[in-house]
């Protein structure tokens, strides 16, 4: 009960602050909104159109990137909270209205997910084995991220070096008492850092972004508050910035989820810095998702707490302590970001290959997520409905391709698996 109360308060608070930051054009969650949000005057008629644009660019992420994985894992993908906060912040005229509406969205999502976590397994018995099978596939595949990024950066030679490093991390994890997946990811990324260190440096172009970086620094109080609230949720292991981390949390691998969060931060850092230094509007979540890493790591230090698809087994005291560590750690990381933006912006324009590295990591994460979504969907459907599950998942993939890929592959696997889980319950009831 304490965990639920804490989750609702933190979720409502973080979403409300995110809405307020968007309302003041201080920070937005969606990268696509960042360059244009300051164009709309605080009470101008163009805000309605801007809110429409914000919704248009967010709806697909909410429907396919966030919702299916959230329903399966019981871990909230942060897009469910903070993309609506963007829309409300831009759309509503008064800040008080934004705070109330966004807090209601945040609280509603957290309550809805708690209901799913509590009542999902007894109502849909296939949910637990389906989720466990899916999560097992993700655990196997996430160490491929560094080699896949390396292949895009430096071809097969760098990919093989990265794969060898990842294997070394995997092997050394057991004697060191660490998480194999986490260490494989972290050690596998070392050759990418070496590649970046050897990359070219260009003469600094004549660009002045001091007004924009100064504006971000002026927004730091609100950003710190947001980070503390969202980091608290991460300490409860109830939020993830992207589906792979959510699946790892569902598999009881918070250290691996922290490693993925750090890779995600490296992947998005150039994008966040670029879009912020040109717009003066920051990323609500900073470099996603490293603000979640302290919360995850607090759970990794404390013994594993969660089994795929089951309600949390965290003790109330463990929840409060985890949320506290997550909140403080996240706020500290956000402070580093805000205070370091001007320096990092100047460094980034002289080191354009950092953007290439970020793009390679983002592409690699998408590649792995797409494969994991389809294989995980197949594995989950085989686990709970071998007679027809793969047909449902495979049929959905074929239909989607024929329809011009209306649904992103990363959303299709989890969504099809949800259908299989429901079908399994119906066939059981009818037999």
């Amino acid at each position: 009960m304490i965990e639920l109360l804490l989750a609702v308060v933190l979720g409502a608070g973080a979403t409300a602050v995110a809405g307020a930051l968007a309302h003041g054009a201080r920070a937005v969650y969606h990268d696509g909104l960042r360059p244009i949000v300051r164009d709309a005057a605080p009470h101008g008629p163009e805000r309605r159109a801007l809110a429409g644009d914000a919704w248009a660019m967010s709806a697909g992420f909410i429907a396919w990137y966030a919702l299916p994985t959230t329903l399966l894992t019981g871990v909230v993908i942060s897009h469910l909270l903070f993309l609506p906060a963007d829309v409300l912040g831009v759309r509503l005229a008064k800040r008080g209205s934004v705070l109330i509406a966004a807090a209601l969205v945040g609280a509603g999502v957290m309550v809805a997910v708690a209901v799913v976590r509590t009542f999902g397994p007894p109502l849909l018995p296939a949910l637990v084995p389906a989720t466990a099978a899916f999560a097992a596939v993700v655990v196997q595949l996430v160490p491929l991220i560094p080699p896949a990024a390396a292949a895009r950066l430096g071809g097969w030679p760098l990919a093989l070096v990265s794969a060898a490093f990842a294997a070394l991390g995997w092997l050394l994890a057991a004697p060191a008492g660490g998480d194999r997946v986490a260490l494989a990811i972290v050690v596998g990324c070392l050759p990418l850092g070496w590649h970046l260190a050897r990359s070219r440096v260009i003469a600094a172009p004549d660009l002045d972004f001091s007004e924009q970086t100064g504006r971000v620094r002026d927004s730091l109080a609100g950003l710190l508050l947001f980070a503390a609230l969202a980091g608290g949720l991460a300490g409860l292991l109830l939020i993830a910035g992207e589906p792979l981390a959510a699946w790892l949390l569902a598999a009881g691998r918070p250290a691996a989820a922290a490693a993925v969060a750090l890779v995600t931060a490296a992947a998005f850092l150039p994008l966040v810095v670029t879009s912020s230094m040109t717009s003066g509007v920051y990323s609500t979540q900073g470099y996603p998702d490293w603000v979640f890493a302290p919360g995850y790591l607090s759970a990794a230090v404390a013994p594993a707490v969660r089994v795929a698809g089951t309600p949390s087994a965290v003790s109330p005291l463990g929840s409060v302590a985890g949320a506290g560590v997550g909140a403080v750690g996240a706020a500290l990381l956000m402070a580093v970001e805000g205070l370091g933006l001007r320096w990092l912006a100047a460094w980034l324009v002289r080191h354009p290959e950092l953007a290439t590295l970020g793009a390679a990591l983002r592409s690699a994460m998408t590649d792995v997520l797409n494969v994991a979504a389809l294989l995980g969907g197949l594995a989950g459907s085989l686990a709970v409905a071998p007679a027809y599950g793969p047909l449902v998942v495979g049929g959905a993939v074929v239909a989607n391709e024929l329809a011009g890929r209306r649904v992103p592959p990363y959303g299709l696997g989890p969504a099809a698996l949800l259908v299989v889980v429901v079908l399994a319950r119906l066939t059981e009831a009818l037999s």
Partner: protein
Amino acid sequence: MPDPQPRPLRVVIAGLNQDEAADAARRAGGAAVDVIPSTDIEGALAVRDGSADAFIGLCQSGSGGALAMAIGLLGRDRCITVSRMGRSSSPQEIRAAVGDGRVAFGVAVDQIPGTVPAIVSALLDRPR
């Protein structure tokens, strides 16, 4: 004296899956287009200083990382998102955007096969 051969259209491509987009652009434009994979800052600067004719940025949404630097350096009026996740502007809409003077185009990576050739075709048909 024969007319000098017009120089190829120079298109910089930045962001996610840029190899796939570059291949699509080369197939669409053939010898009439010079495709230059680039970083977003160098690509936007190239368009700003006139050494490139157009910028195609790629990301998941077609509007975030795809165009952030281009909007900052070229201005919003010269940039447009022509595809988002799961859907793309029509060739006619893309042609109209080019006619309006847009030079930086945001594309969602899942729409590369349909959208990038349409951008290249519209740019090639534009009076130069």
